């Protein structure tokens, strides 16, 4: 434990939580092989998809100090985030309004991302062609392949380090210099969070303490699981008592067997829409993302909903803001990404979304100025030692065969 780490947190654990996931060299090598293979002259082959070339943003000078010095501030910003992720009051976002007033930049904040992979698959052709994808900032999770693929393929513009004042001053050690993006060259975290268990105390009166409750036959037809390969697989691994980060393909098969047996009990496999089913009482217990349930219970009147981190632990992830290539408003993007690291601004956002806060200094502002001890004292917003010890990192895919094997083990459970 060093003085730079949060008290009570083992640095080895932080490293474990935040290790880099896929080797960049591996990507590039595979890309090269792909590009070579494409020289086949067959008409049919010409109909295929081109592999990723190795010409990265950096190679074209995009994101270099010289490139950044040529950029000027534009007065619009197109920001793509996940739903339920920003402070909302009367249909407006106070933190964004404040930014617009301060800078005169009009922010078009949209919520098109429900799932990393499918969002990435949609923007991918434009990224590959170097087109503007319509967003200046997007938010991707470190637990799924797209983030490391964006960085590995050179589709994430290197950030202007001189415009990260708030970040370097206030960011938590948890998100500063993370192993998935050493030196914060490409990303600044938006929030972190847990994939844990949420349930409705109106129907479930016992205290839920174990992930085994998701496999309990007495909740048949009222159980929600996530139809997201990394999430579902990790939940299965936790349920069979295996640490996902250290798991082997044999463990995956066992976990998949357990999940397949559970299938008759499951109502549906969800992505972000699980929260609607939980609110509608179509399901009573579900895999959830920690902040969603907190918001539903505290701000939206669903006060019988509760989220718990079970004794087996919960998957811990971080969502990261990054600038995709083809960006049209890079300076505005930098300004907004850094703006959210102002502790007062972050307090506004955090007090609403209640995920894991990337700015520790916001805690006292939430407690004293916003007078919201529920959020300020929540161990899942400002994690205590016990929470941290229950935080589990995701498995890291070594190469595409590894990823294929994981997907072919877990995807048939929810698509068949």
């Amino acid at each position, binding site marked *: 434990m060093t003085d730079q780490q949060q008290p009570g947190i083992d640095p080895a654990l932080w490293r474990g939580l935040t290790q880099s996931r*896929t080797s960049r060299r591996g*990507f590039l090598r*595979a*890309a090269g*092989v*792909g*590009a070579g*293979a*494409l020289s*086949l002259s*067959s*008409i*049919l*082959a010409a*109909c*295929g*998809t*081109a*592999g*990723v070339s190795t010409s990265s943003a950096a190679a074209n000078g995009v994101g270099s100090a010289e490139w950044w010095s040529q950029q000027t501030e534009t007065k619009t910003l197109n920001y793509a985030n996940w739903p339920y992720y920003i402070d909302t009051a009367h249909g407006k976002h106070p933190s964004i309004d404040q930014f617009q007033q301060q800078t005169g930049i009009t922010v078009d904040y949209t919520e098109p991302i429900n*799932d990393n*992979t*499918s969002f990435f*698959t*949609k923007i*991918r052709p434009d990224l590959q062609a170097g087109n503007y994808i319509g967003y200046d900032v997007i938010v991707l999770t470190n637990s799924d*392949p797209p983030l490391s*693929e964006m960085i590995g393929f050179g589709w994430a513009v290197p950030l202007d380090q001189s415009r990260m004042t708030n970040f370097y001053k206030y960011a938590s050690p948890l998100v500063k210099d993370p192993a998935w993006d050493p030196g914060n060259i490409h990303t600044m975290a938006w929030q972190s969070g847990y994939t844990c268990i949420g349930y409705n105390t109106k129907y479930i009166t016992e205290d839920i303490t174990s992930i085994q409750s998701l496999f309990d036959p007495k909740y048949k*037809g009222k159980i929600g699981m996530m139809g997201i*390969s990394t999430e579902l697989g990790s939940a299965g691994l936790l349920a069979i008592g295996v640490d996902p980060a250290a798991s082997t393909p044999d463990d995956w098969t066992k976990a998949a067997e357990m999940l397949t047996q559970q*299938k*008759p009990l*499951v*109502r*549906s*496999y969800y992505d972000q829409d699980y929260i609607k089913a939980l609110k*509608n*009482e*179509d399901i009573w217990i579900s895999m959830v993302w920690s902040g969603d349930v907190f918001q539903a219970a505290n701000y939206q009147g669903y006060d019988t909903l509760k989220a718990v981190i079970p004794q087996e632990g919960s998957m811990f992830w971080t969502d990261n803001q990054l600038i995709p290539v083809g960006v049209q408003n890079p300076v505005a993007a930098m300004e907004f990404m850094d703006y959210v690291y102002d502790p007062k601004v972050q307090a506004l956002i955090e007090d609403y979304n209640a995920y894991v806060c990337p700015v520790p200094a916001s805690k006292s502002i939430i407690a004293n100025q916003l007078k919201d001890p529920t959020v300020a004292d929540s161990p899942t917003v400002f994690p205590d030692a016990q929470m941290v010890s229950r935080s589990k990192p995701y498995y890291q895919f070594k*190469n*595409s065969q590894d*990823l*294929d094997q994981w*997907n072919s083990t877990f*995807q*048939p459970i*929810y*698509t*068949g």
Partner: protein
Amino acid sequence: MEQHVPADLHGVEPPRRHRRLGRSASPYLLGAPAIVWLAVFFVIPLVTMLSLSIQTCDSITLACKLTWHFAEFPNIIGRYNDTFVRSLVYAGAATVAALVVAFPVTYWIAFRAKRKNFFLLMLLVPFFVSFVIRTTAWYTLLADQGTILSTLKNLHLVPESFHVLATPLAVIGGLAYNYLPFTALPLYVALERIDRRVMEASHDLYATRRVAFTHVVLPLAVPGIFAAFLLTFVPAAGDYVNAAILGGTNTVMIGQVIQNKFLEAADYPAASALSTVLLVLMLVGIAAYAKFLGSRTIEEYV
């Protein structure tokens, strides 16, 4: 006179030849937009799909190369056999349900209603709202503790554990509802076309109303019924929205699998192979259909 003709012909020959050329080219010129349309939006995607289905791709770089890897076909047919069967059964059930609902309505509009256009418009107006929004509305209406089911449960008309969502019934109902216009319009056209004098003749020949219906109206409406069946069944079999929103773990349709393979797994060969199999199934179905019915009647209505 006969001698004059060649002279005349000789005189007018250049313009005539010109005209003839224009005449012979005109079908192609008129067809050009359709040909370009078909080439760009049908032939190229189709060839791409067929080609991708026998390629091998790297799941991270998405570099694909043609390997003539036909093994994907038996592979996916084996693995998704149940899903294919389920999709066809759901689509068939939904089509029959839509026909049962649409037939009396269109019959009434075609034969009895005074303001046909008004009622036809009334039938179609709900479908001006986005497909997904209407389906999500059903999701909210039919929620386990939603207005309808919670009322029924409070009245003890259905058991507490009763639910509609996440059952095959919900998916089939959603499909039947969403594709209703595709069923109703061809039916209406067929019924509207029936010559009223034929009906009168049947009555003159002492046919009762029922006999007139079964022996005159129904046979004349058959091409419309078949057209409606095709237009509803084909898109319903490939639909994924209804099953995704209204369905559960045991109602997965082939469209959902294809969507997942394309967008989530980025497994283009498997997705293409699945699409190809679906396409072939549909083509075989339609060919059988055309043989049974004769292709002319289908052309008239589809």
